[in-house]
């Protein structure tokens, strides 16, 4: 075993032998982002579904994206929530569409060369599971994936374990903070 792993949130979504490494510390993520050549952020509807202390996960997404200048793809119907916050996603698509594009090593959303890191948050759990599975099998040569969802996504390269809402927020806050302070 190469590191800590966890169990799928939907219990029956059992992955193959290789499972996501658990993000043990938020710093893991921020430093991966720091080192990334061209990260991309994919954000779905679950990012707007919960709220704690007046904040939604989408708020952290925006902070992170701004801090590190990461292009955001708003998937499913999340665009409106971004716009409400005066943040214009780079593109709107279906989760399957962006998944498909990411399998192409020659594609990028910003012309800055292939994406090497995809950050994912807020896609329907089981849909994210299969899309990450698609990327795991068809983009493994050029792309690593990080799920920032509340629940363990075994097909990512890195994922949080299953977290309470509060823990999740703490983690997101910490990542956003780390990115905010970093030189860019």
């Amino acid at each position, binding site marked *: 075993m190469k590191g800590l792993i966890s169990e799928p949130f*939907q219990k029956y979504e059992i992955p193959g032998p*290789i499972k996501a490494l658990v993000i043990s510390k938020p710093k893991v993520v921020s430093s991966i982002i720091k080192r990334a050549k061209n990260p991309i952020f994919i954000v779905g509807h679950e990012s707007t579904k919960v709220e704690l202390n007046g904040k939604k996960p989408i708020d952290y997404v925006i902070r992170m994206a701004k801090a590190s200048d990461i292009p955001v793809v708003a998937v499913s119907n999340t665009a409106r929530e971004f716009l409400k916050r005066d943040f214009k996603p780079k593109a709107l698509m279906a989760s399957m569409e962006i998944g*498909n*594009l990411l399998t192409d090593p020659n*594609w990028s959303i910003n012309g800055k060369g292939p994406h090497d890191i995809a950050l994912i948050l807020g896609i329907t759990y*089981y849909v994210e599971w299969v899309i990450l599975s698609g990327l795991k099998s068809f983009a493994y040569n050029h792309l690593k994936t990080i799920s920032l969802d509340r629940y363990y996504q075994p097909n990512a390269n890195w994922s949080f374990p299953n977290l309470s809402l509060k823990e999740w927020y703490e983690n997101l806050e910490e990542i956003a903070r780390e990115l905010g302070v970093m030189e860019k």
Partner: protein
Amino acid sequence: MANLKIRIDELHTDKIIAKGFEFRVGRLIEEWEEEPGPTQMPNIASLRDWDRKLLSKYKPFYLPFCELCCLCTMGKCDLSQGKRGACGIDMAAQQSRIVLISCTLGAATHTAHARHLLDELIAKYGPDHPIDVGGASVYVEAPNIRLVTGIKPKTLSDLEDALEYCEKELIHLLAACHTGQEGDNIDFESKVFHAGMIDHVALEICDIAQISAYNFPKADPEAPLADIGISVIDPTKPTILVIGHNVPPSIEIYEYMKKAGLEDSIELCGICCTALDLTRKTSKAKIVGPLSHQLRFIRSGLADVIVVDEQCIRTDVLIEAKRVHAPLISTHYRNFQGLPDRTKDSIDEIVKDLVSAQVPGVALLDSEKVGEVAVKVALSVFKKRQKFKAIPLEPEVIKDAKRCTRCGNCQRVCPNYLPIPEAMLAVANGNLEPLSNLYEACIGCGRCEAYDVCHQGLKPHSMIVGASRLKMEQDRFKIRIGRGAIQDTEIRAVGGPIVMGEIPGVVAIVGCANYPGSWKDNAIIAEEFLKRKFIVTASGCAAMSISMYKNEDNQSLYEAYPGIFDAGGLVNCGSCVANSHISGALIKIASIFAKRKLNSNYEEIADYIHNRVGAVGLAWGAMSQKASSIASGFWRLGVPVIVGPHGSKYRRGLLGRKDIKEDWYVLDGRTGKRVYVGPTPEHLFISVEKKEEAMVLIPKLCMRPSDTTKGRAIKLYHYIDLYTKFYGILPDDIHLFVRTKADIPTTMKEEVIKVLEEKGWKESEIPSLDPTLLSKFVRVKG
């Protein structure tokens, strides 16, 4: 095709001696006015070029639902990240193989259904019973059969040749899935298309046979309305519940009721397609609802007898039936349920054993017997049986909810991860609403109640239903019964407007009830497009779900909209097998309206539909292997299909790349020139997560290279309008769809031109185009 009968009174040959026998030649394919085209009864190789053409534009994106293969004893094999199995297969080929297994399984199910139905109908109505799908208004009675097999069926027995062809091809397809066969994923996908094409032939055989024999509505836009919903069932009457897809036993129940003068004293109701088809036979039948209602309705205890035929039956139906003391009758060897086969026993004996609960159920493979037994048992059981219920009352729900520890296990096994724990908390505090809010989203799968899931022994599904009594009382709607085919005259009327793009599109809302959210989403989507004057067709569970919703005027959409195949019409074709009328209508547009040769001419017809007929399928709750084969029949015709999020588990999308210009050239059939036509339609198969996404995609996927500027402007209008409505922003790909300024919707000129300018759009000349993907359809003059 004609049936040639020859009687020979005495015959000697060198090999046989026979006396007084009669034989029937049912294998002479009568010539129509048309000579057969190039692809009569195509085999796996015949349409491969066409398939690969489509698949080069719509490349599969595989979403392995499992990274292993477990099909043979050399496995399991781990295929992730470039690994190959012990047989040499890679992940792409494996995923496409699984898709092929699924589609072949689906098509085989329809084919087997057709075989069963046809045998039974021929036995009852004779091989010469005429095919009559819509009298004089439906001259092209069997567009799929004619297109694929070259057969123009006149009688029931004429359908047998088409059916044998289906059986043979499916066996070849299944064989291709064996370990150590095909290795190329695109070839697997081509075989998937083949399965889909076969499937629509089988579907058509089913439905035109039953329409003809049972005198179902014959392409009738004014087919009557029927009752649907749990609360339409009168609890004061003996009740027979039928479940499944193969309607003959249910019809025999009705026939026996009629004979016995019991039409009004027994409730005959059903779940899934058998119910839909039964209402096509008699206005006395009622529909409970789609598959997701199975568990809750059985547990309601209203059914005194349960009769199952085949497909979409809960496999634990016997256990559930026992819980409410309702005898079960299995009518099909595909679904014996372990019950004793009593087909040869006397009716009285069987009735006695069922009524006395000697046996919890029987298998009875004779439809007429089923009719009599079911009625007799219902009458007797009703008297002695109180309506046992397996659903808790509200106080019990509240009491139980207090025991919930919110461990989350139920949510974690729920396919829709419904927030049961939170709802339990509310219920414990006396508020039933959050739990009852799950009523429409719960697909009734029962997984949350499985052994050991809830360590407190709670039954979340039952509690949801128990908390929703008020809702169930309002479960009372109207559905237009399945009208069957589309009339030739309707096709003539709409062909032009559709091909020009003036009717913005045909949306087929079909498929199962595995919805990611409320079942009402189907109706909301349908309403949106009815208002926008699309043609909305429906079938199967989706047709039911559309009815289970009231609009502002407190009407179901079937009451609010006409049943015509025209702009703003809501067309319930019928049960799942009626999907063939939807593909059939598209084929008829090419053949009747555009006068393309129909007989055995698949490529040309599909090429026509793909490039010109703005149609799209939506299977929001697609669940089964049948649904996948139905979809693949549309794919081969080049018709895009959208599925809900659970559809991602079908293991792949067929996605276009609008950013790759090279992919979007067609040939102009008149000049042979390659012409860029933009990403129309953009995808062939995609799963989306939210109904808003589906609604935005529908008009977009209705765009076709052949759209006139007026038509394109209309489609663009709906696309942009829905996009901005849901996303609050203009789409960033408008420039790909606007060819000349005339394509721009007039009411949106300003904004659109701004976008076009940003994108550096330049007007291009659109010659009036005869678009085709295949060079063989280029007829350069001179």
